[in-house]
């Protein structure tokens, strides 16, 4: 039996890695990838908790996170395309002016 603590530690490490990428990288594609990693880590925490109690609820929550991640990545990639068309760059700091 895998201990719940180790599963949650793995989820926490993956979440911290995603957060590090989100804060450190300025390429907007890497920012989106880091968000995906963080969402995946959150889903892992749900599945670990569901396995701890032997209930399917954690897996249901993972499915909801999956739907959220799919919607987020589609809109996010469309935003990347719009940003690239407007600013000809992938730097997120190029999008710090909201006017126009």
């Amino acid at each position, binding site marked *: 039996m*895998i201990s719940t603590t180790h599963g949650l530690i793995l989820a926490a490490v993956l979440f911290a890695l995603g957060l590090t990428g989100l804060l450190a990288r300025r390429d907007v594609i890497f920012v989106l990838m880091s968000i995906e990693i963080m969402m*995946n880590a959150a889903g892992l925490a749900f599945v670990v908790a569901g396995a701890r109690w032997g209930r399917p609820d954690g897996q249901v929550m*993972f499915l909801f996170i999956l739907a959220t*991640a799919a*919607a987020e990545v589609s809109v996010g990639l469309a935003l990347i395309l719009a940003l690239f068309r407007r600013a000809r760059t992938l730097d997120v700091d190029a999008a710090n002016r909201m006017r126009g």
Partner: protein
Amino acid sequence: MSATFYVAGAVAIASTAMVISRRDAVHALLYLVVSFLSLATVFLTLGAPFIAALEVILYAGAIVVLFVFVVTMLNPGSQETQWRRPRAWIGPSILTLVLAGELVVVMARGEAPQTGGAVTTPREAGLALFGPYLLGVEAASMLLLAGLVGAFHLGRKT
């Protein structure tokens, strides 16, 4: 069989660290696929085979393909010859070989890779999804519709 969990978790952490530290987005995507595959192995050891399959199909399949589309659309072609150097394949290949070795070991032992905990079958997950969580499914469908409309609106060439 908790060794399967620990090896897959170590591969997941290593590949995720490589994702956030690569310079080229295509290299990072290679490591991202490895990260998702190793997490699918972790889900399998946690007694969630349905989630493991969905992780491979949706994360390592659909979402990474979307990323690959955008990266290949946006990147200038000047670096393409540099990307094709075979050195970039070495790291993901080693990590994937570790996962493949795990697969061979598990299949050779002839037992399910879950480790004593209860296995939640797709039937149980589906019954919970369309029983007490039906409202959440409807909300997720509306969220996906909003994502579709938003992506279409933002992606129009105007």
